[in-house]
């Protein structure tokens, strides 16, 4: 089977644990329990995205984009370094679904990812202006900072919506 990829060729694909910062389109494909953490600075039309897989780094530093706590720091610092004003940052969250009811014990990792990110964003004083989280469906996301921070979410059946 050949892999298909949402927005191939026109967006930088952010894989699990990776991140991207800048004005150009960026995308993650097939989010399940992972969450796409998206930060946006409207004045400068610069954005960033991290493909977060787990809530807590427990002190690991090698892959900051993989964990909620380290990913937030990584994106904020990266955007400030690009000249963004911290006070103007807004956040969008996509993903955090629960695809399998019985694997992974009682831990709903998707929900924990989302909850942790929300708590951390509140602590940082960054408002969440849109989110599409939870449920049990996979999602692909493309984020275009240069076009007003537009976020498009696609589901497996092809239906799309904008955030």
């Amino acid at each position, binding site marked *: *089977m050949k*892999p298909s990829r949402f927005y191939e060729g026109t967006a930088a694909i952010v894989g*699990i644990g990776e991140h991207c910062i800048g004005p150009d389109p960026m995308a993650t494909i*097939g989010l399940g329990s992972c969450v796409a953490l998206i930060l946006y600075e409207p004045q400068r039309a610069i954005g960033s995205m991290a493909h977060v897989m787990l809530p807590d780094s427990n002190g690991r530093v090698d892959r900051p984009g993989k964990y909620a706590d380290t990913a937030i720091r990584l994106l904020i610092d990266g955007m400030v370094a690009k000249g963004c004003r911290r006070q103007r940052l807004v956040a969008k969250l996509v993903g955090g679904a629960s*695809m399998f009811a*019985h*694997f992974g014990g009682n831990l709903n990792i998707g929900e924990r990812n989302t909850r942790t990110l929300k708590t951390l964003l509140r602590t940082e004083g960054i408002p969440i202006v849109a989110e599409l989280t939870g449920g049990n469906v*996979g999602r692909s996301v493309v984020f275009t900072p240069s076009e007003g921070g537009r976020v498009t979410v696609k589901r*497996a*059946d092809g239906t799309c919506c904008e955030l």
Partner: protein
Amino acid sequence: MRLTDVQLDAIRELGNIGAAHAATTLSQMLMCQINMSVPEILVVDIGRICDHIGDEYSAMVVFQLQGELEPGGYIILLVSRESALRLTNTMLGMTDTDRELGEMDQSALLEIGNIMISAFLDGTAELLGIVMLPSPPELAIDMAHAGMSSLLATMDADIDEVILFRTELMDEEHMVNSDILFLPDTRTLADILRLLESIVGPM
């Protein structure tokens, strides 16, 4: 995770035997010939899994590995949605491919996954001399990468690379393609390598 060529070959051979068993059962169920690709074995960084598994609409029948080895990792039958429809149509004697995968299709997929993966693990057990039992299966019909990454998130948090063992089973007559993905966790992989080494000698 550094694997030598000999180790990769040994795992490929193990998978080859398993997949051949699975292909035989599929062939018996569909009463037709099944072609099997040469198994592909890749060590893939988690960030680049999306280069191999995308957001294609797929049916995934997922089993956790249990048995003499500690619960550790997953084995997955991955079928594109179109192939899944043709597969269940063949099993259920239907022809309509322009429909949703309903309850009947879902039970058929779980059943076919059960039979194929049990055969796969029987085959590997013969070689390894130990049994990896599949858990009861769970079915997801969604984006392949969404399923895979959700499973990864339940494994060891330190996992930054996965062994992607993948073999394709093709039924030309009914145009059915399926992949078997074997996703052992770090400890299961170490156990398997140790057992293989005791068979073929130092690797």
